[in-house]
């Protein structure tokens, strides 16, 4: 620098004889505090000169080094405008002006900064002194009575009270006689506030919150979305899972008598998604998946096939998941339906994005193409009486592939009946609600039923909701006959009768050798129409189809015009028997023993009472046989035969009334096993003359 100045002055000396003036370096005469200022003046040769710098310092004498010229350097310590004066004292005739002047401007480039700029009471403030001449030796006067000497350029200090303080920093080795660099420090009473970043966050994006100026570092947070954090740091992070405007509040932990600081934050909707190059690919065919608008830089991927080949760093929290870039390519080794999931920010994002891809080929996944759920009547709505079993729902599906179909029925909002069945390729699968127990019909009013599939889950089929209305009354068909447990002779078809039910348009009767088809309302169960509404006499074919010598169950139901069941009877059992015991009527007499002529199965007489003499024969041995005699529907005799031998003929005598209008007498032979079995039957018709 000095060399530069010397060179400058040499050049100036060459030019100087042409005029007499103070030349400065820099020539503008503007320097910073502490910066060296050079001056040069000619026409001073042979004279005594005094240079007044203007700041109270001066230089006198003749420069013997530069004949006829005067050169000197000076450093100003304070900013300001100074009048430099060069005075000559001549012994003879002056050749130059006695005095020459030059204005010097000294600028201040020293700075004071403080952090924070607006400190609060008690808050530690960091002060920094810049461009000071002696930065390692400064004197600090904080204006609140605190003075520090021999300090560096960075110090800290906290003000105990609010107010405006003048900070003075003395340069020049802390010389208090110099003019200090000063600034005003405004110390404020602290205002609690919540600050956050980023400014416009989206759903699931991490937002950093800072509780500023709080009294303590233990903060209770309420993010306004139901998330609460207690006794945590003033700096927290949170992700909002829904868009909207939320009011975030924070309060010092344990402070109950002050209001919390609040701040509204607007969360923009999520704009992230997954995009597939194709929803269906082949085995080993490359699939490209793009994480659209993901924040990245990494995404935690799971392709659903357990593959971690792309990045062999499994994430412990999600088996099978691995980090990857925003755009991934993948190929599947096996066919099937796969669910691709991705979590932004390498899994830090809470939201999981999913996309389904179908890999064509053999797999155990079935693809649902079309499904229908209906009630018994083939519709979505049905009306049934209370406690009716005549309402079931069924799922009918057309699918591709072989695999498991599982799910559950939801009745009145309650997961009720689960199913898990194997569906085969090409099969139209029908899955009904179970018959045991049936759909609830205890409570009157509207009931709903729908379906949720858990497998195949990827099809995400949404099923409609069916409704069935339960009437506030039971509607049961009262059966009249034959009575429960009746035993009927095979060569005499029975007549079935019952009472009408409310709402019955038509009546149907069904017979079954087992309870199950009736209870389950099996589709292949034959329901016979009953044109007479309240009675049914089976035709020969139907009667023949009923099993012999074993219990048969029968039930009557009433249907509306469309065939929907509106009422049912209970289930009764009966047995049609092929008789084995033979009853022979040998003689019929009046009470005085006089014989009465009888035809086959019929007798006519004027007598009020008849005595029937007969025999009973059984083709096998029996410990007990019971002969029961019914006249006009009344059990009028019951005889017990013990230890009957095979083929043995046992005689009996019984009386029957012969009322006007005639009567029908039935002889039944029971073999008293458990339960008793009707093994013989005979009839006699009485006609009163």
């Amino acid at each position: 620098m000095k060399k530069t100045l010397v060179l400058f002055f040499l050049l100036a000396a060459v030019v100087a004889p042409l005029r007499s003036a103070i030349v400065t370096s820099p020539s503008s005469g503007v320097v910073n505090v502490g910066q060296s200022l050079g001056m040069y003046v000619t026409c001073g040769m042979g004279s005594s000169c005094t240079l007044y710098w203007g700041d109270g310092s001066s230089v006198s004498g003749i420069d013997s080094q530069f004949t006829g010229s005067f050169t000197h350097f000076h450093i100003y310590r304070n900013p300001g405008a100074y009048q430099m004066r060069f005075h000559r004292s001549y012994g003879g005739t002056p050749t130059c002006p006695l005095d020459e002047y030059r204005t010097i401007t000294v600028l201040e480039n020293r700075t004071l900064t403080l952090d924070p700029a607006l400190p609060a009471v008690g808050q530690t403030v960091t002060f920094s002194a810049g461009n000071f001449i002696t930065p390692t030796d400064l004197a600090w006067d904080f204006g609140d009575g605190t003075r520090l000497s021999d300090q560096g350029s960075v110090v800290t200090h906290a003000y105990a009270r609010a107010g405006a303080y003048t900070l003075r920093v003395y340069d020049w080795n802390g010389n208090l006689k110099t003019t200090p660099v000063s600034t005003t420090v405004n110390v404020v009473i602290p205002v609690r506030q919540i600050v956050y970043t980023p400014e416009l966050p989206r759903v699931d994006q991490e937002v950093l919150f800072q509780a500023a100026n709080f009294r303590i570092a233990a903060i209770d947070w309420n993010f306004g979305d139901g998330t609460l954090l207690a006794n945590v740091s003033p700096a927290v992070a949170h992700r909002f899972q829904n868009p909207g405007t939320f009011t975030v509040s924070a309060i010092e932990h344990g402070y109950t008598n002050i209001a919390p600081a609040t701040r509204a934050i607007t969360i923009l909707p999520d704009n992230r998604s997954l995009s597939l190059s194709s929803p269906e690919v082949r085995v080993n065919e490359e699939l490209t998946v793009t994480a659209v608008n993901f924040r990245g830089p990494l995404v935690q991927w799971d392709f659903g096939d357990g593959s971690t080949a792309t990045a062999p760093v499994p994430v412990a929290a999600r088996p099978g998941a691995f980090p990857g870039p925003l755009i991934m390519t993948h190929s599947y080794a096996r066919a099937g339906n796969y669910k691709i999931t991705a979590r932004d920010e390498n899994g830090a994002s809470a939201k999981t994005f999913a996309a389904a891809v179908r890999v064509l080929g053999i797999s155990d996944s079935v693809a649902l193409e079309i499904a229908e759920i209906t009630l018994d009547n083939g519709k979505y709505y049905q009306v049934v009486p209370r406690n009716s079993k005549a309402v079931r729902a069924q799922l009918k599906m057309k699918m591709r592939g072989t695999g498991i179909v599982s799910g559950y029925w939801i009745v009145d909002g309650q997961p009720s009946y689960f199913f898990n069945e194997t569906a085969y390729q090409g099969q139209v699968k029908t899955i009904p609600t179970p018959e045991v127990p049936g759909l609830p019909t205890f409570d009157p009013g509207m009931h709903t039923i729908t379906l949720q599939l858990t497998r195949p889950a990827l099809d995400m089929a949404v099923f409609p909701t069916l409704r069935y209305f339960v009437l506030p009354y039971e509607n049961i068909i009262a059966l009249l006959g034959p009575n429960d447990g009746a035993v009927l002779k095979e060569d005499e078809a029975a007549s079935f009768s019952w009472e009408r039910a409310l709402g019955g348009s038509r009546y149907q009767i069904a017979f079954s050798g087992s309870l199950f088809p009736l209870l389950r309302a099996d589709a292949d169960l034959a329901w016979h129409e009953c044109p007479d509404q309240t009675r049914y006499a089976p035709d020969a074919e139907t009667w023949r189809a009923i099993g012999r010598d074993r219990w048969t169950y029968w039930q009557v139901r009433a249907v509306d015009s469309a065939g929907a069941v509106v009422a049912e009877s209970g289930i009764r059992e009966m047995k049609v028997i092929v008789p084995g015991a033979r009853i022979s009527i040998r003689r019929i007499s009046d009470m005085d023993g006089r014989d009465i002529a009888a035809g086959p199965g019929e007798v006519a007489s004027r007598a009020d009472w008849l005595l029937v003499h007969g025999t009973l024969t059984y083709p096998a041995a029996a410990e007990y046989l019971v002969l029961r005699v019914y006249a006009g529907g009344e059990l009028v005799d019951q005889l017990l035969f013990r230890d009957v031998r095979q083929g043995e003929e046992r005689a009996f005598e019984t009386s029957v009334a012969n009322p006007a209008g005639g009567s029908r007498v039935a002889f039944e032979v029971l073999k008293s096993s458990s339960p008793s079995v009707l093994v013989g039957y005979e009839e006699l018709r009485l006609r009163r003359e």
Partner: protein
Amino acid sequence: MANKLAFIAGTWLLAVCVSGQSLQRLNILPRVERAAGQVVIRITPSRGQGPYFVHYRTEGMSGFQVRKMEAEPSGTQACRIPTANLYGRDIEYYVAEKRGGGMADVTLRHTIAGFTEKNSPEIYFQEGAAAAAPGRRWEPPVNVNASLSTSHKLDPNSESETGQQRYSANGNLRIYRNIVKDDTQFDFDANFAHVDPRNSEIEKAINLSSMMVRYKKGAIQFEAGDVAINETEFTTSYLNRRGLRVEITGDNFSLNTFYTNSQQKTGFDGFGVPDTDAGIFGAAAGVNLKNTLKLRGMFLSGKDNLDSKTVSSSENPYRQGNMFSVWGELNLLANSLQLNGEFSASRFGSAADPALLDQASDTAWKAGLKYNRGILSLAADYESIGDRFNSIANLFLQNDREGLSSSLGLTVKSFSWMVTYLDKKNYMNNPLQDMLHQKRIGTTLNWGLGTHFRVGADVSRDNLDYDSTTGLQTSTSDMNTYNYSATLGYVAGSTGVNLSLGKTESVNFTSNLNASLGVNLRFGSFLTLSPTLSYQQNETLSDGGKSTIYNAYLNSEITLIPQYLTITISSSYMNNDSPYSTSSNWTAGCNLNFFAAKLLKDKVRPSLSLKSMFQGGKYGDVKSHSSLFNLQADIAF
């Protein structure tokens, strides 16, 4: 006081005088003598001519046996009753005298106890003959049944997870009339339903939820309303729609034609007037030659729309097509052998937009036989269905396949056993999917054990393999699926139990285990319990990941006062564990129902219900719960 005593004494004397005649006639005391193998009943008549008859009966009898007493030299009347064949141990008897055309008791009823030391077996006492059904009663010109159910949320702030508005009202009005006279039948049946809350976009406030107008005379039948069309697999299988149908069924021929509204947007809601742009027309004509040869031809044409209240589909919603089909059946060997076949040709197309409908033609055929003889049954059929073949009236037709299916069955009383074998090719012309060869063999048995038990079992092996000749296959592996299942059913009266266990394993893919138990228990008229338990476990064999679901559901009714007051309780619990998530939810409901129908002699049937429902759930660490209280009133007449 004296007057009072005199009144009582006078009354007593008067009563004695009035009843003296009866007392005199009934004051004969029979004498009973027990002898070997018989009892002898004797009376000594004070006056009267007789004859006298002994009426007696033993345990279980509702009427009496009658025997005439014989006069003995001593003037007594006697009757000997052999006891060897009498049932029970006691004889109840009395003696009556025949006077004029009737009988008059002359003794009180007496019992001879312990006439024998022998035991009589307990026997099943059969009731008398069937009661007679009431005769045909008068019927109004039109029958009307109506019901209404209104519900009011007691706490407006309470919410269920499914949401519910504060008031709801649902009702039905059914109008019907059925007339049968000789060979003429007329049915009119319509049910109007009002549903609130409802989805106003697809439901109307009042819907004609079911409808049928039927007129039948002899062989001709006309139907308008909710018709069900069921012809053949290739044409239409249980097409349930609203429409018109005319059927003529003769001994040797049949004709069936229909037109249905296929616009299912509102299901069976509204009045179902067919839209001209969305309907299916069909006609079938057949001949029957003495039940030996049956031939039927059918034609179908129309448009369909899958937008429905009952259908969930990933297929194109708009469908259009037409087809014809010829079906035949030949019965031989006294109907033991049945040969049948069908050939169909269709022109069909479907699209996401009706403007994009593009139809293509294809054919399908099948031939089969059935043989039933005694306990054996055999069935086999071979079918070939083109990839572009489809029926406008059958949503569930599986096309693009060809192959054999067969079964061999054995039925002995309540035991049935069946073996099935299937060999079919699928996706024969699919540009995306390789041809898939399917072979499956399986066996099923059902056995009714006595009256109450039924067991069933099913075992099958299914093999899927690609036919590499198509050149599309990139993987050579096939898939074997093994299925094992067993069921046990028990029914006794209103009590039923159904237990099922099953395992399905797709080798190298997944293994699935499931079990379920459904029970229906009825304890008299007091308590009905219907619990259901189920468990499912699914294991992905490639990574060993397991997921389990278990569920419990209970539905029950407690009758506090029969026909008047009940409490119903329902609850459910479901837990779902998988490698990625754990969730559980529960519900509990309790309703108190009061039925007042009996108070009003069933003329009107009102009921009042206080309902409560509680729900809760836990998904991961997030919990939720809600409760709902309703007061519901129902009425029906």
